[in-house]
């Protein structure tokens, strides 16, 4: 695939994915609301399939093209009111969207659209079937009344493009070729009054909306036969004189016209074969493919098939058996020299001359077993030759895979950015350049004469770099909206599967989070929501018995709190039973029965995150054996976040994910404890004091309390906590840094304050496990490493002040 095509594929996949993500929740909402179908939504869904079909066709993604075509047809029916958006139909559409999504991922990776399992085809048929049955109540299955404006009788429409006068065989293209006939008496559509509406739109049948089609079919058949004859003649002369260039061009033009006409009339199957043949012919024309007897034979066979198909019109445009074979033949020939499919074993065998094309077609026809095996079984290739070819395939695959892996863009590495942010960035860069100049040219202090210029310029530079940093970081921020939207479907599916009724309410979806965070919390959210529906929300009967509304509510909210993003999942379900969790915990030896009562609710619920923990009486296939929660916790920790659980029995559970706002940069106070450097997030620091001995109270158990501005606070001796040899032992000799989190404060005793720094956070390698109360580390200007404190964790570790 050349770069440009790859770019187009990339855009196509990104664009389609986005559209699917946007449209899916709308579809679901529409079916749930039970009101009249929303025309706007239907229009959007239609456009989604329509656009996808167009590009898929160009990019030769056959199965995507076919299914989007079918879906598009269904959407038209929805639009005209011929079909109604019943839950079944919406479900079918959602399944189609799912399958298409998966196919897009595959296409993105391999550049090929292979529907080996036939899944897309099946879904397509299924969709049509359901659509046919989704007739709005009160309306009979009836052909839609054509709403086309009829041309006034007897007025020929003159085209400035190709007109009737031009001999048809010389005007090849998919441009309107046939004369537009003024509509006089339109052939009454009795023929399809019985047909169900969607059938009337099937491209491979000979009827459309019943607008003077009969008038157009006749010329098509006549011209078609002429074109095919011309093509055949040209091909035959090629057989005898392989070198001539004239005949190839003639054959190509004829086939090309023919194909265009098929498209015009909507004979998709015939068009497809014509297209395949045309592609091969083009390759011959360009000299990419030799004019071997095999190739010409394949082309002639396809012309035959086309002729047969045409002869069956207008009644029956189904494809005769042999024609399918011809199509396969041509396809194989094309494929064998095609750009894609370079590593297919069939192609390799043909290239090595071990088999010929019709052998391959036979093998492909026969079985679902690997082509190579079938060929060997039928003695069409010797095992030794097959092995050699397989070896070559492996080699090519290795190269291709690596090449593709290097080149194929994964959509996640690109980002949609608010243009305003980019403008701000550009402005700042401009200012930066100016400020830099000012610094370079500022007269600096020499001796006694001090100048204000340099410090001023430096201050300005500093201001600009900070702003620049802010904007650059904000570029990575995306609304959490996209992640939340995906949850609508998840909740719906789980609720449906379980026979529960759940409504998902989303708030704060415009809240911006770092791109990485948005990506990483997707999975944990899915799991948590599934859990909430599965274990949280009760069955409708139970809810009714408890006096709750039958429909359960799940609230998913996002907000900025302090320097963090809080994502909350709230359900009004049965809550978590403290007793059950404790039972399980005691059972697993996580806590002794004696210690149990003194644990706070939060501590009890924290046990849920232990691996393998599950209090569910029955393991459902949805949430699994409780293996999920510990994974969820780890995933949240990956983004330096934490999870809090609160629950009230019978009323509901609230799970809060707290994730730091910026992953990358921290504004912190660097302190020294012995030989170790720590960085305390500035946001958490209330103040720093040098204590006086009279403000310090020593408790019997060794704990120290300090009185600061009237408040009594516990002291945490950092050196003792972390096992470091300190510089100072007495509190009065060192510094107390008062830090707080969530309303609780504590004093950290350190040796020295080094200063305020803004630095880049680096994670402490996962290899180190989970050092208590450290949320990472940072590299200071002198290359030393400073450990970043997790204040919330620290505070949690301190015994509460009396």
């Amino acid at each position, binding site marked *: 695939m050349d770069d*440009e095509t790859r*770019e*187009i*594929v990339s*855009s*196509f996949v990104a*664009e*389609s994915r986005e559209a699917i993500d946007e449209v899916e929740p709308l579809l679901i909402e529409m079916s749930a609301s039970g009101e009249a179908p929303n025309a706007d939504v239907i*229009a*959007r869904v*239609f*456009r989604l399939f*329509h*656009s996808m*079909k*167009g*590009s898929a*066709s*160009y*990019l030769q993604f056959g199965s995507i093209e076919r299914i989007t075509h079918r879906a598009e047809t269904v959407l038209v029916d929805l639009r005209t009111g011929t079909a109604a958006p019943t839950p079944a139909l919406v479900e079918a559409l959602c399944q189609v969207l799912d399958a298409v999504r998966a196919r897009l991922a595959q296409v993105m990776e391999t550049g090929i659209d292979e529907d080996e399992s036939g899944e897309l085809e099946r879904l397509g048929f299924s969709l049509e079937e359901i659509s046919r049955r989704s007739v709005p109540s009160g309306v009979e299955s009836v052909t839609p009344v*054509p709403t*086309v*404006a009829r*041309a006034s009788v007897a007025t020929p*429409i003159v*085209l*400035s*493009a*190709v007109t009737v006068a031009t001999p048809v065989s010389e*005007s*090849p*293209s*998919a*441009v*309107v070729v046939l004369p*537009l006939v003024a509509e006089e008496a339109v052939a009454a559509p009795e023929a399809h009054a019985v047909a169900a509406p969607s059938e009337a739109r099937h491209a491979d049948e000979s009827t*459309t*909306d019943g*607008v*003077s*089609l009969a008038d*157009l079919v006749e010329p098509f058949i006549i011209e078609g036969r002429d074109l095919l004859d011309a093509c055949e003649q040209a091909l035959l002369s090629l057989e005898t004189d392989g070198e001539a260039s004239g005949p190839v061009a003639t054959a190509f033009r004829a086939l*090309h016209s023919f194909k*265009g006409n098929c*498209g*015009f*009339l*909507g004979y998709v199957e015939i068009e497809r074969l014509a*297209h395949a043949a045309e592609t091969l012919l083009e390759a011959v024309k360009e000299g990419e493919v030799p004019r071997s007897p095999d190739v010409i034979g394949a082309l002639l066979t396809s012309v035959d098939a086309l002729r047969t198909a045409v002869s069956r019109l207008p009644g029956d445009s189904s494809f005769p058996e042999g024609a399918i074979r011809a199509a396969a033949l041509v396809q194989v020939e094309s494929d064998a020299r095609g750009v894609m499919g370079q590593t297919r074993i069939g192609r390799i065998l043909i290239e090595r001359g071990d088999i010929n094309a019709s052998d391959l077609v036979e093998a492909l026809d026969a079985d679902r077993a690997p082509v190579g095996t079938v060929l060997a079984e039928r003695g069409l290739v010797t095992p030794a030759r097959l092995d050699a070819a397989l070896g070559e395939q492996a080699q090519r695959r290795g190269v291709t895979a690596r090449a593709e892996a290097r080149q194929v863009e994964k959509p996640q590495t690109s980002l949609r950015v608010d243009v305003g942010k980019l403008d701000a960035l550009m402005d700042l860069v401009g200012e930066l350049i100016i400020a830099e100049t000012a610094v370079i040219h500022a007269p600096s202090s020499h001796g006694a004469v001090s100048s204000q210029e340099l410090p001023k310029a430096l201050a300005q530079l500093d201001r600009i770099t900070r702003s620049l940093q802010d904007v650059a970081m904000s570029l990575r921020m995306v609304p959490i909206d996209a992640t939340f939207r995906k949850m609508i479907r998840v909740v719906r599916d789980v609720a449906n599967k379980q026979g529960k009724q759940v409504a998902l309410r989303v708030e704060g979806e415009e809240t911006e989070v770092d791109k990485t965070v948005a990506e990483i919390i997707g999975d944990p959210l899915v799991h948590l929501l599934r859990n909430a529906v599965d274990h949280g929300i009760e069955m409708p009967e139970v809810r009714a018995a408890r006096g709750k509304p039958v429909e359960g509510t799940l609230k998913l909210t996002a907000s900025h709190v302090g320097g963090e993003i809080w994502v909350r999942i709230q359900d009004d379900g049965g809550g978590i039973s403290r007793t059950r969790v404790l039972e399980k915990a005691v059972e697993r030896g996580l806590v002794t029965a004696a210690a149990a009562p003194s644990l706070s609710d939060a501590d009890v619920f924290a046990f849920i995150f232990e691996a393998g923990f599950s209090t569910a009486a029955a393991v459902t296939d949805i949430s699994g054996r409780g293996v999920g929660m510990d994974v969820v916790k780890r995933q949240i920790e990956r983004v330096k976040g934490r999870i809090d659980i609160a629950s009230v029995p019978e009323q509901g559970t609230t799970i809060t994910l707290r994730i730091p706002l910026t992953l990358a940069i921290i504004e912190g106070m660097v302190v020294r404890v012995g030989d170790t450097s720590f960085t305390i997030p500035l946001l958490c620091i209330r103040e720093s004091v040098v204590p006086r001995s009279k403000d310090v109270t020593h408790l019997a158990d060794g704990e120290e309390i300090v009185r600061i501005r009237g408040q009594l606070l516990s002291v945490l001796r950092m050196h003792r906590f972390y096992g470091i040899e300190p510089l100072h032992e007495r509190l009065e000799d060192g510094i107390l840094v008062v830090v707080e989190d969530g309303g609780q404060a504590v004093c950290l005793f350190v040796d020295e304050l080094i200063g305020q720094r803004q630095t880049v956070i680096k994670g402490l390698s996962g290899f180190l496990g989970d050092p208590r109360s450290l949320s990472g580390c940072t590299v200071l200007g002198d290359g030393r490493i400073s450990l970043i404190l997790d204040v919330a964790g620290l505070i949690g570790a301190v015994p509460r002040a009396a």
Partner: protein
Amino acid sequence: MNRILIIDDSKAMRMIVARTVRQAGFGDCTIVEATNGAEGLAAVRAQAPDLVLCDWNMPEMSGYDLLEALNADGNVPPFGFITSEGTPDIKIKALKAGASFLIVKPFTVAALQDAVRGMKAA
């Protein structure tokens, strides 16, 4: 031919059309893009393209409505539709509204060349 305006709400499709336009020999033309009928209208008024290649189905304003609007303006540049909608009624509609041609997707180099040739001949 100096300036060609391509109107389609799908970026992938615009890329495809632009590429085909280049392959058809119009590589040294300026290519301008618009994402829907309304934008297209503004573009025609502002930039006076020598040729407009327009999709049929678009949000905001469809290709057909755009053409009608241009008719009302009294300023219709050479205008062609590129669309999957190949049904006869659409074609009739398009041509009556003043389109010079309607190309049914797949949109090929040859189709474009023919259409342009046909346009010039008329």
